[in-house]
């Protein structure tokens, strides 16, 4: 690689004082432009951390509420605090990508149903009303014309299964923050694993 020319330290032979001053000016300008542009670009690209990679904010809101209905917080964390939605969001862009369409369509149907029955978005309903609506969805009791593919029962079962996965699976997939569900069930993680034979092997 060529050594970059530093005009301050190493003026080319025969370059006059005036040239050196010009060089200095150009250099300073360059540095200023560099800093300024970078700061500007950094500011422009200052992407607000998107909370979700797959879901839009409008989809995430009812899903968060639905998952929290399925596994609500009490003295132990619920689905939201355990990061269940984070799990589903990540897996829908990975191994569970075949379910993307079902989520898009099912969440829209859920929202339509809530608006039709209560004139309110699902996530804005009170806890009791949410519970009633989720029970209806589970049993297939909502107006059928509001649901296409997946059916309300199928959608419920899908979300329930994924909520359980996110709540009880390993945190490495985005849910079960700090193994909260294991602690709730009295299961040690990381578990103590001894090796039976160490001392004998030493001898």
């Amino acid at each position, binding site marked *: 690689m060529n050594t970059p020319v530093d005009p301050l330290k190493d003026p080319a032979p025969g370059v006059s004082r005036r040239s050196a001053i010009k060089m200095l000016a150009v250099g300073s300008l360059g540095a200023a432009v560099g800093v300024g542009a970078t700061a500007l670009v950094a500011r422009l690209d200052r992407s607000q951390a998107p909370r979700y990679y797959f879901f839009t904010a409008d989809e995430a809101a009812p899903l968060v509420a639905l998952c929290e*209905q*399925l*596994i*609500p917080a*009490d003295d*132990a964390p619920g689905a939201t605090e355990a990061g269940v939605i984070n799990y589903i969001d990540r*897996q829908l862009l*990975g*191994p*569970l990508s*075949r379910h993307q369409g079902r989520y898009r369509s099912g969440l829209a149907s859920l929202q339509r149903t809530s608006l039709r029955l209560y004139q309110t978005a699902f996530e804005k309903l009170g806890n009791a009303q949410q*519970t009633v609506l*989720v029970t209806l969805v*589970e049993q297939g009791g909502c107006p059928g014309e509001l649901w296409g593919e997946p059916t309300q029962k199928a959608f419920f079962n899908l979300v*329930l*299964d994924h*909520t*359980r*996965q996110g709540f*009880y*699976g*390993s945190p*490495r*997939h985005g849910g079960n923050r700090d193994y909260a*569900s*294991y602690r*709730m*069930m*009295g*299961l*040690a993680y990381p*578990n103590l*694993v*001894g*090796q*039976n*034979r160490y001392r004998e092997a030493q001898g």
Partner: protein
Amino acid sequence: MAKPRVNAVVVGAGAGGGIVAKELAEAGLSVVFLERGDWPRYDRHNDDELVSQRTPVLGNPYGPDDARYRRVVENPDGSPSIVLPSEGAYSNNAGCVGGGTVSYGAMAWRYMPQDFRMRSTYGAVEGSTLEDWPVSYEDLEPYYEKAEYEVGVAGDYSDNPFGGPRKKPFPMPAFPYNKEGKRVVEATRRMGLHPFPIPMLRNSVPYNGRPACIHMRSCVGFACPVDAKSGSQNTVIPRALATGNCEVRTGCVVAEVRVDDRGRARGVRYFDSEGRGWEQESDLVIVSASATETARLLLNSKSKLFPNGAGNTHDWVGRNLQGHGYVGAFGIAEDEVYEEAGPGATVAFCDFNHGNAGLVGGGLLANEFIALPYTFCEVRPPGEPRWGKAHKDFQRQNYKRVIRLYGPIQEIPNFSARVTVDPTVKDAWGIPVCRLSGTRHPYDQKLGEFMSGKAERVLQEMGAIRTWRGRLGLGLSGGQHQAGTCRMGNDPTTSVTNRYGQVHDIDNLFIADGSLHVSNGGFNPVLTIMAMAYWVSGHIVSGWKGSAFR
């Protein structure tokens, strides 16, 4: 492209193939061992319940993968659905060196003498192809023993009056009962039953250079972090390699067995891990790819003399697909019975495997392996809420109190439960995939009812404050215990191979896996697959010495 000719090609490095490769290599044959998967590595997936071979909701840790494999399942209305290996209906076993033995629960059962004589014992069953095996328990006894010693089994049959006669004790002492197991023992003894420790392909003491079990909670469905579980990948396959006569080629998918115009297998055509196609010529071909994949390979191996696939002259390849209906009962104990020592299953009894008045066959009952939290979500009495606070409360109140007494029932073979190859759907290598169709025999449900009733009785005797029974659906059986699709028999018109696993009409083509099973016993099948592999290998080696295959 062609590879240098060898004496034998073995397809599939699971329970059966590992033993065949080792026996042949030790007898001096040059062996190429083709395995579609890779060597298993614990570190890649370790204790992750969602990437476990039992709950592969995010993928199978030990193969096959969702990206390149698929199958077609025929729905009850005849319409086809494409399924992925991570979905239950795929009926997956595994795809790696060691196959299912890497991640199994490792119960090491010998079938009982009656299991080989089902037709003579019980007569014909309507709508079933129930038949006697062309080999007997006595034929297999020395090979069971060899499997127990070479692969490694811990057990003790002194309290089991129902096992067939055995010449030698187990090579390792049995594992002790856990807290739950002790209670099962007390209750069953009071009831006049005969509990005993489950024989396990798992080291209770250091054995054959591998350490003793450290009792991981995450055992069944996972590899062992200290290699205390005996599988073919850490026993017979290393021994095969140590002879210098055997080469394992991983990532190799076999497309067909080449059969020439004279009706002899010439070798196989396969794709290597880079997707390049190869011809591997050999004197012998042994297929041990599991009941579904072995049938698929034979059906995909069309030739002039056998246009419907190798061994399929009489349309028996792929028929009689069986697995095990798992059935039993659940009970909630008054206090905590959970003990932090995996894998959890310690005690079994065989009082109901045979001799059940008015019934054909039966099955063992055992306390179950530890269910991890996600799996436990499905352990619920009928009518119990599935979500909300009630779900959480059940999880925390009952996780350590639920006892499951479960077992595999001997299924009644059904000719229409079958593997075919799909006419249109292909895998990533362009090979037609398995198409699964049919249902289990309705008789299985009757037997299931009986067994779950017996299990529930024991749980009540144990003082469970609440009990409920599991139920068996009619859905197609298969999965990890898949068997029966290349039945062995003495009549070439009603079987695929002879009593030595040699395909009728193709003298140098053998099968050595659960496909051979005429019926699948009321037991986990792996030790029988291993014993059969020794049996088949013994026949090959003695024939080889007489130059029968050259």
